[in-house]
């Protein structure tokens, strides 16, 4: 439990925590290396002093005292629970539960890929999906593209184009695997399927255990599989989705893409079962409804084949 202000002063006098003026000097960046390292070593151990340092910065930035050109930070003091036995923040659990439960029903839509946040926000304004497959990271529901109202027949909105360009720019600044996968998604949304697959294949190679990359690669294959002479991409899409599901068995995006791949391969009974499996994972009624529709079509085709 963090000491109150008076107790904190007494604590400092005991030598356990640095005095507040030393923390202020640390924030100002005027300490020599030895003193700075000493304070840092303390901060590693002391959450109360870390809070003081971070809150001091935030207060300064919010009052216009920052020397940095960065925008003022949101005031985000750490949350702490002190007395309520067992009252762990449910949000903590959600961090993992988003992958296994139904996040939209519990705590609203998630965005778990900050590198895609701008693109996700821009895409949320679109009424139709740009690609048939599902992209990972918190993209909200939009109707599937179709011949009549698909994205290829109309230009992307300026917001989406700007957000996609930002993602590509981020990759130039920092070629982390996350940024490379995000650039793949940006290419995919803009209709550059080969570029998307190149980036996503590289990201997967760099980090094969990231289910999100595998699932997005599946979505890219799914899209290219509709092109002439690209039917072999259906199998690739299925494999990538299944790899994602091996890592994250309850990942809705991967489950959706797997069902789409089975649809594309005309494995109708398996596709119908895959849609039924996806419906159990779907985060919203809209996704469930689309899956139910696709499932009934797959079952109808399977029944016709069985005659």
């Amino acid at each position, binding site marked *: 439990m963090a000491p*109150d*202000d008076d107790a*904190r*002063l007494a604590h400092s006098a005991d030598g356990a925590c640095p005095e*507040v*003026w030393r923390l*202020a*000097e640390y*924030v100002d*960046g*005027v*300490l020599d290396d030895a003193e*700075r*390292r000493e304070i*840092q*070593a303390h901060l*590693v151990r002391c959450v109360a002093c*870390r*809070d*003081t*340092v*971070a*809150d001091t910065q*935030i*207060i*300064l930035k919010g*009052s216009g005292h920052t020397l*940095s050109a960065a925008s003022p*930070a*949101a*005031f985000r003091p750490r*949350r*702490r*629970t*002190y007395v*309520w*036995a*067992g*009252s*762990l*923040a*449910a949000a903590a*659990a*959600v*961090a*993992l*539960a*988003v*992958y*296994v*439960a139904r996040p939209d*029903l*519990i705590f*609203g839509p998630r965005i*778990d890929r*900050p590198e895609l946040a701008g693109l996700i926000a821009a895409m949320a304004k679109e009424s139709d999906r740009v690609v048939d497959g599902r992209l990972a990271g918190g993209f909200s529901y939009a109707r599937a593209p179709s011949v009549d109202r698909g994205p290829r027949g109309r230009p992307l909105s300026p917001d989406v184009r700007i957000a996609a360009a930002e993602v590509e720019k981020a990759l130039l600044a920092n070629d*982390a695997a996350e940024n490379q996968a995000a650039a793949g998604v940006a290419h995919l949304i803009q209709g550059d399927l080969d570029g998307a697959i190149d980036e996503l294949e590289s990201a997967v190679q760099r980090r094969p*255990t*990231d*289910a999100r990359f595998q699932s997005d690669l599946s979505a890219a294959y799914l899209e290219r599989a509709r092109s002439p002479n690209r039917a072999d991409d259906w199998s690739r899409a299925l494999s990538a989705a299944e790899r994602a599901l091996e890592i994250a068995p309850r990942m809705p995006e991967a489950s959706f893409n797997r069902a789409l791949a089975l649809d594309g391969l005309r494995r109708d009974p398996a596709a119908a079962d895959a849609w039924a499996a996806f419906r159990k994972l779907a985060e919203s009624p809209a996704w469930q409804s689309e899956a139910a529709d696709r499932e009934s079509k797959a079952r109808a085709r399977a029944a016709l084949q069985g005659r």
Partner: protein
Amino acid sequence: MDRDTADRLFYQHFDEIGRLVSSAARDLSAIEAEELDIFVKEKLSADDYRRIRAYQGRNGASFTTFLAAVIANLLKDFRDHLWGKVRPTEKARQKGTNAILLERLLRERHSFEEAFEIMTTDYSIAMSREQFEDLIPHVNLRYRVRAAQGEPLEAVDSGRSPEEMAIVNQMLERYCALLKRLRQICQNLLPEDALIVKFRFEDGRRVSDIPDLLGMSPNRPRGKDLYRRLERLMGRLRESLEAGGFSALEVAAFLSNPGLGDGCDELEAG
């Protein structure tokens, strides 16, 4: 520093203190912000300006930064006084003061129906039923008591089944186990790397804020280096956590949702 010097500094910086308090109060309602302003000024002048007299002014250190640090500490005390020892969740804070109040009322074991009544009558918040329901996804429902049978607003919560909350609780234990392992890993890192990890993954600070939290001179180049360093640290953490028996999925979820382990210590202790 003597009392008179401190008195002079206090009045010279009176407006500055007001601006710093306004910045500190950005999560508070207008009334609470006024209360904080009074609270801070009282504390700063108490005991013959004891807090101000602590200012050393070494190495050209800024008095404004010193004031901000003192106010940061006073803000913690004020929040404890205001909200009790349980903080509102980040989700409620982002939604605003009404969501914070709703979360507090649910924590005090009011039902949705009672909370709506209290907010619109006792607190005179002009709010429709729809606006109230809009707040609900933004509060921590773990605080919600079982609603009375037949309570109309129960429907709002119908999507959150006991099974889902059971999953939440199971996952919580895994999150805390990951956090515990992360702390062990920190013991083998260089202090500055460990501090970056703590700020980012334990406290949930934004990556873009971390360079300013390392106590470096403002003239020292920062930014891109930090991202590279964080990326390297992330790789190392990922490997160490996976080697500790956690799945790639759990580790990815943990690292992409930093700063949510509040209460893990109580779980361990309790």
